[in-house]
């Protein structure tokens, strides 16, 4: 059964479920891969640190990918248990708030250079409380998201639509709220790897304004080799026991192999550093 049918998100993402997001390496790897793909589609300026919103940020996995690329971010999520992992275990650089995206984005107009959301927005299609209307909540979400973005910014939302109708409803409300853009499908021929991303534009784009092409199976092989390499690293100490610094450096190397630049290519004394309070 789909988790969306079992309980409201703040109940489903309890302490046990939240633990998986800091312990289960398979889940962590999948979420990180999708986060990196979403960030890539934001088309942020190359050499500048941006300010990004992460919607349904959960335990901060997706946010950590933003930090690794040198960006600042804030996140919102409806599950206290997930946010506790973000703050107490993962010690994310980004600030997080307990909030329901269906109630709107509690940020001023034009403050974000982009927004991402990984595996969260499909939750808005369910009416979890008396008086919840999915179309209304989706519209409130997209309307306030649109205004919180800077002109020309993008929102890339990876989601698991249950039916084509659901996807249509989501896209319809996004368009009503002013967004243009469309759906990107990665690995459409693979039952497991197939992923949907809404790539939304808030206002006229600078330069190329096309919805990016989806990845195909050829690239899938590339990702597979990449995963193998991560495994090598895992056997040499284990991700679970790796220090934060090792994890950051490993992910940086993964980026460099893919030919991407990371914001802080040099590893310094700040790399993966846990910031201690200074009173």
């Amino acid at each position, binding site marked *: 059964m789909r988790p969306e049918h079992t309980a409201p998100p703040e109940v489903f993402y309890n302490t046990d479920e939240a633990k998986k997001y800091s312990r289960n390496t398979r889940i962590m790897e999948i979420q990180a891969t999708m986060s990196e793909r979403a960030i890539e589609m934001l088309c942020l300026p190359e050499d*500048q*640190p*941006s*300010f990004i919103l992460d919607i349904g940020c959960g335990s901060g996995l997706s946010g950590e990918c933003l930090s690794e690329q*040198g960006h*600042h971010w*804030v996140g*919102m999520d*409806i599950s206290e248990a997930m*946010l*506790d992992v973000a*703050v*107490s275990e993962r010690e994310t*650089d980004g*600030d*997080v*708030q*307990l*909030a*329901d995206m269906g*109630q*709107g*984005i*509690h*940020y*001023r107009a*034009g*403050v974000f250079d982009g927004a991402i959301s990984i595996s969260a927005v499909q939750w808005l299609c369910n009416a979890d*409380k008396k*008086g919840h209307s999915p179309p209304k909540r989706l519209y*409130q979400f997209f309307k*306030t998201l649109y205004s919180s973005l*800077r002109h020309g910014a993008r929102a890339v939302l990876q989601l698991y639509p249950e039916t084509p109708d659901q996807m249509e409803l989501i896209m319809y409300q996004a368009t009503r709220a002013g967004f243009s853009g469309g759906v990107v499908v990665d690995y459409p021929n693979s039952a497991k790897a197939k992923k949907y991303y809404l790539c939304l534009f808030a206002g006229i784009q600078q330069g190329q304004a096309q919805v990016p092409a989806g990845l195909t199976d050829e690239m899938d092989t590339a990702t597979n080799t990449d995963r193998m390499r991560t495994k090598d690293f895992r056997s040499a100490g284990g991700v679970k026991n790796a220090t934060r610094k090792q994890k950051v450096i490993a992910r940086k190397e993964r980026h460099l192999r893919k030919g991407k630049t990371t914001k802080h290519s040099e590893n310094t004394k*700040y790399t993966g550093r846990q*910031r*201690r*309070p*200074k*009173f």
Partner: protein
Amino acid sequence: MKLLTHNMMQSHVKGISRRFPLLIKPETVRVVEQEFNPDFVRRMLGRIEYEALQQAMTWLGHEGKLPKDCPSEDENNEDILKAIHHALLEVEMVEGKLVCPESGREFPVKNGIPNMLLNEDEV
């Protein structure tokens, strides 16, 4: 909660017109060292509300540490940029409350996490 976050947030209670800034009632405040990036600070200068940032520093007991006027986006003086970096990213509220400037609705902050959930009749 960092003051950069506070400066970008607003109250989302329905039917009000004055949403910013959320008032801060701190109980626990701390200072955490963060990596200084002058490019990021400059990039934020165009979108922060400077008076609200000064006000927030005062609420958190760090009055008078910011330059009087908001520098321009091509500011090069490192001391000035560092003072703003400090206010935006290093001073944070761990426990306390945020208060909607118009409705007086309180949002508790615990372990650095503001609870912004509204009741259904406030949406």
